[in-house]
């Protein structure tokens, strides 16, 4: 088995790592979500560990909801990783919203890394019983 000890190979590996980080600078993890719909609207829960309020971005375009966040960990100096299951510090997930959701009335709450979004349905889209008049 050959071991990579030559300086040439080490240099190439370092270059590959730098290229990788440039290529992956936009890469983000997809956070797992729970989405429930009731008669009043939609509730969404997203796992965003390590994310504080100032690093969370919620953008609503006409029919798209984008969740973007950056996580921050307190890392001591000189830390060397030996086992990495969460390899990126960025989260992103995009959803298409249907027309009856009232995007102007979205409320959001971030607690211990869990984002809770509440998107109510527009007033006109709430279920209504129609009175039938006997003629």
């Amino acid at each position, binding site marked *: 088995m050959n071991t990579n000890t030559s300086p040439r190979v080490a240099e190439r590996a370092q270059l590959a790592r730098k290229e*990788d980080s440039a*290529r*992956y600078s*936009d*890469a*983000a*993890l*997809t*956070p*797992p*979500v*729970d*989405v*429930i*719909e*009731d*008669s009043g609207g*939609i*509730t969404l*829960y997203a*796992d*965003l*560990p*390590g*994310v*504080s309020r100032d690093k969370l971005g919620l953008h609503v375009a006409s029919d798209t909801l984008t969740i973007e966040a950056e*996580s*921050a*960990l*307190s*890392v*001591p*100096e*000189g*830390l*060397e*990783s*030996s*086992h*990495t*299951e*969460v390899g*990126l510090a960025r989260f992103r997930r995009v959803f298409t919203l249907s027309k009856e959701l009232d995007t102007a009335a979205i409320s959001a709450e971030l*607690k*211990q*890394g*869990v984002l*809770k979004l509440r998107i109510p349905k527009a007033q006109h889209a709430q279920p209504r019983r129609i009175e039938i008049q006997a003629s």
Partner: protein
Amino acid sequence: MYRSLFPRDMFAEMDRLQREMQQAFDLSPTIRGFGRNGFPALNIGGTPQTVEIYAFAPGVDPSSLEVNLERGLLTIAGKRENALAQDDEKAAIHINERFEGTFRRVLTLPDDADPDAVTAKYRDGVLHISVQRRASSQPRRIAVQ
């Protein structure tokens, strides 16, 4: 658990996957296995003085979190409640990806980990455990007479 959809560059992604596979086979697996893709996800690293463990467990009730260190074995256990169960009967669950229930992950720490010097902090959903290494095992230079 956290995977990135639609990688920007398929070849770079394949390359990275191949390197990751090679790394996985280089390690001699412990008898307790690799334990990948569990909840919570773990990042483990070290400095010359400490071993650092980050467990990504958002939304866990801190009173249910249990961190135990016994004979070099670190156990992280707890329970995550399901927020969905409290909703009314007519609610429709469209997506259910988040973990719910009791969890337990176990990992072995190196021999020089000091069980009496462990700190654990839970912030923004990340449990950060820091274990000091025993002072006597720090690298020392031996003078030659």
